[in-house]
């Protein structure tokens, strides 16, 4: 029994956690953008890929992984900001906003994916592991890079949480998410908050790309499967809920990790979507409430 815990369950749990943290980063970006702007960003997976490629290109040009890890999200901020102000803003006030922003970001996803194919080719690229070796925990060896990924991911999640719930900037964002007219009438520059939030969500996708590139390879469609999991996490956790994204992200990836001990890994994704369908049937609004709504 102890052996089973130590050698079979524990590695699954820890590997699941490292993927879980990355999924939460993606889901956070998606859910914050939805919670504030009411926009479903279909290009989120491609922004993730763009981040991975930017990181890859920067490292290939000679800078260190650590520099890329900090610089890529900084590069993604103006890209996200411009996307909101130049594209999404144009259809934002339309009555057909939901369908238009969905189509717009879907088109952007296709453009980004093909742009990446043109620039870097369709073949997977494999960046070097920035941290090699493994560390012993409870008598087992875990790759150091995965441990690092978890630590950074948790730090970012905590920082996002504190920013949204403990700072005046966060209060502005929550106020604008709930009632943009009232927030504006108190002086909140709502249009900047919108663009800034979109940029922030996109930067989160970008940093996830850089972080995960050394584990999975870098290829133009790398965001597709990953964003599907992030989408189900957001739907189960509650569209626009930060708490929901964090909890659902961690729990669902654990369910996937542990269930793969008993069922073929082929079935772990259907299991996830099955849970999503069940949640939608029982609690269509998801487990938690939307950003700014209490």
């Amino acid at each position, binding site marked *: 029994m102890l052996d089973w815990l130590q050698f079979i369950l524990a590695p699954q749990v820890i590997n699941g956690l490292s993927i879980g943290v990355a999924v939460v980063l993606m889901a956070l970006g998606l859910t914050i953008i939805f919670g504030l702007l009411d926009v479903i960003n279909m290009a989120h997976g491609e922004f993730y890929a763009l981040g991975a490629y930017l990181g890859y290109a920067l490292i290939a040009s000679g800078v260190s992984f650590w520099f890329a890890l900090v610089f890529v999200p900084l590069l993604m901020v103006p890209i996200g900001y411009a996307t909101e102000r130049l594209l999404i803003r144009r259809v934002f006030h339309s009555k057909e906003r939901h369908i238009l922003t969905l189509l717009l970001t879907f088109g952007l996803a296709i453009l980004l994916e093909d742009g990446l194919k043109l620039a870097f080719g369709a073949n997977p690229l494999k960046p070097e592991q920035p941290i090699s070796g493994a560390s012993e925990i409870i008598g087992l060896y875990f790759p150091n890079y995965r441990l690092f990924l978890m630590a950074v991911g948790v730090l970012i999640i905590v920082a996002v949480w504190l920013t949204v719930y403990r700072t005046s900037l966060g209060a502005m964002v929550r*106020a604008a998410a709930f009632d943009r007219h*009232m*927030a504006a009438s108190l*002086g*909140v520059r709502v249009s900047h908050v919108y663009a800034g939030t979109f940029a922030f969500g996109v930067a989160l996708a970008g940093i996830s790309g850089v972080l995960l590139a050394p584990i999975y390879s870098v290829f133009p469609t790398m965001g597709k499967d990953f964003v599907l999991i992030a989408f189900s996490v957001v739907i189960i956790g509650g569209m626009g809920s930060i708490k929901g994204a964090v909890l659902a992200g961690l729990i669902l990836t654990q369910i996937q990790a542990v269930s793969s001990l008993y069922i073929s890994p082929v079935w772990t994704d259907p299991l996830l979507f099955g849970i999503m369908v069940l949640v939608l049937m029982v609690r269509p609004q998801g487990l938690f409430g939307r950003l700014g*709504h*209490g």
Partner: protein
Amino acid sequence: MLRLENVHTHYGLSHVLQGVSLTVEEGEVVGLFGRNGVGKTTVMKTIAGWVRPTSGSIELGGESIAGMASDDICRRGIGFVPEDRRIFPGLSVEENLKLGLLQCPRRPARESREKLERIYQRFPRLKERRNQMGTTLSGGEQQMLAMARVLVGAPKLLLIDEPTEGLAPMIVDEIFSIIGGLREEGVPILLVEQNVHRAVEVSTRFYALERGLIILEGKASSAADRKALMESIAV
């Protein structure tokens, strides 16, 4: 100070304001009265920039503000206390108040702190509940919070829409005494209120609105004007 000239506002196809002209001068409390659905709230929302006027001019201190974004209008000095209070859920009383400080950006932290303290002196009950969620306050306290978070930024002019709606009589007295206090201080106010008798008492001047048009203007000090007002809005 505030001047509306022939303002028209549409909601889609419905023509809500059909040429409203009114003024609010320094030190005045101006009542805007009328039956339900005649466009009083739309006048307020149009001034505050929540809806754009389709034509006409709105000037604050000689500067045109028609069609400006609400946050720019706020920064020009118009404080809007809308109908239904619109307190943000999930934000504490103090967070709600601090949002109001955004009207005057780049103030030193000490000055903001002092402003907050002054507001707490005026509304001691909000100070007691500063860490409570804004939406857990009673209706009257929420109304005070809605007014306080606008007043904290020291606006040049206030728009107050239905401040006593749904409140207990004792709280209604309190709200009117706050408005009376603001009048003493010389803060110009445009006030929409169902409780016309009480509202006229704190007003200096008033207008009656009927189907998107001003049909009457009068002085609160004139008994004849008051009589005409009551007749014009009587059901």
